[in-house]
């Protein structure tokens, strides 16, 4: 473990994290900190390992090296029981929503309450309806997940993620595949939840504009390293070529649009 204890203002501290899939190093000794009560975004193109990072924070994957400290606890040294206790205080919103498809919206949101609290039926009902009201879907409580649109499913998943009033929520690509209206409501919701419930939010995303609009602090990942970090302004004015390319979405720059290949003309006319 790192000798310096992370300051209390950081809810998550990642130190020298290295993680590989097969031969590919997804993270190469990265370090980053996430401030309590803020919205922190972690950005990078698809396949950089953003989802992997969230799973590492949640203790679902084990790092090859390095430490992840969440709320003063080293996630990967916790016993299973303590890890589960910690997870009750971390909500995670999966990209797909990950709702259980064989039970209704209501039961999905009620699930963590039924499993982890001793509340009686009517209290659970009240809580579930409050959470659903917060995401605007109180009226959809009796629907099955298959009957929801993508945007609605993600909002139900959000209601489920806040059911136990966690200290932080991790959002995996919350903006991808949303129509403009659900996008707007989602952005507002994430902000509201963060401010009214005093949550910490971690947003993992490759949607530049939406993310820049709501994040307090941004990390940009590239090829297993932190390519740049700072407030949205600092990131916009970053002098890293890489960060610039990512922010502007240019096809040319340090990252190439084309997968490495032989000469195009040669390939066509051989």
């Amino acid at each position, binding site marked *: 473990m790192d000798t310096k204890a992370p300051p209390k203002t950081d809810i998550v501290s990642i130190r020298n994290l290295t993680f590989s899939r097969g031969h590919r190093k997804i993270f190469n000794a990265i370090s980053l900190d996430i401030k309590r009560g803020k919205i922190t975004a972690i950005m990078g193109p698809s396949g950089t390992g953003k989802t992997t990072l969230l799973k590492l924070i949640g203790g*679902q994957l084990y790092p090859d090296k390095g430490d992840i400290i969440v709320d003063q606890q080293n996630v990967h040294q916790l016993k299973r029981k303590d890890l589960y206790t910690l*997870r009750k205080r971390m909500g995670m919103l*999966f*990209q*797909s929503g*990950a709702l*259980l498809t064989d039970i209704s919206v209501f039961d999905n949101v009620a699930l*963590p309450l039924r*499993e982890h609290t001793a509340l009686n039926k009517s209290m659970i009902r009240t809580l579930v309806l409050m959470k659903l009201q917060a995401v605007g879907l109180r009226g959809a409580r009796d629907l099955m997940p298959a009957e929801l649109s993508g945007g609605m499913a993600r909002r139900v998943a959000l209601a489920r993620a806040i059911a136990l009033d966690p200290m932080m929520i991790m959002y995996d690509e919350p903006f991808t595949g949303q129509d403009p209206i659900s996008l707007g409501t989602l952005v507002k919701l994430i902000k509201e939840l963060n401010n009214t419930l005093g949550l910490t939010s971690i947003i993992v995303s490759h949607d530049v504009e939406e993310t820049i609009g709501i994040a307090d602090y941004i990390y940009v990942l590239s090829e297993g390293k932190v390519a740049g970090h700072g407030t949205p302004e600092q990131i916009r004015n970053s002098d890293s070529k890489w960060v610039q390319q990512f922010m502007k979405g240019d096809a040319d720059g340090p990252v190439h649009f084309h997968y490495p290949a032989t000469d195009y003309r040669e390939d066509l006319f051989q």
Partner: protein
Amino acid sequence: MIDFLQKLGQTTLTSFAKLGRGYFFLIHTLIGIISVLAHPRLLTKQLYSVGVLSFLIISISGLFVGMVLGLQGFYILSDFGAEETLGVMVAASLVRELGPVVAALLFAGRAGSALTAEIGLMKATEQLSGMEMMAIDPIKRIIAPRFLAGFLSMPLLAALFSAIGVIGGQIIGVGLLGVDDGAYWSQMQSTLDFQDDILNGIIKSIVFGFVISWIALFEGYDAAPTSEGVSRATTRTVVNSAFTILGLDFILTALMFGDI
């Protein structure tokens, strides 16, 4: 040559690794069963989808198998003038062998494949990961109830198969071919032995139920989280279950009926 050895070594290692995961999975599941007993509602739902929905295929197949036994048995036995013992032959074949084995094969195809596909898809759509992140153990909440339901359903389905098969044999033997109804039943009753025949058949189907549920759920849980991964896992469930059922049937039969 080196390549071949390397591949062989690799394959052996991965199969052992999978076997190891399979045992861990089983132990974890068996522990999880304790918590299922505390939430019986989880179980009833699975008993319905695993057990009750297999009723029809088991009943119809049992009827046909019994009818074929009635026909074949009658032709063989009447050569020796022993058609009175048709009931014994039909019932003994069913209770000892065909009931447990054929019902298990059908169960693996009907319920086992469905379980693998269901669990594999839950994995591919991150439902299992999602539960873990909510600090809910998917093995306790999802796997264990299904395991218990499969384990409990199998002996009942095998018994149903045998019972309907006996009736099928009677329809053909007594109804069509003119064997005496009284002889059909009374010979059966006096000759079949509770321990040798019925109990052994039940033990077989309990073993098969255990193994099929284990294979089906583990293949789903261990599937690669893609469409292709789930489809391969489903195939593996049916193939591996069939081999395992037939192999175990031989071993169990040798232990129960042979003088080994």
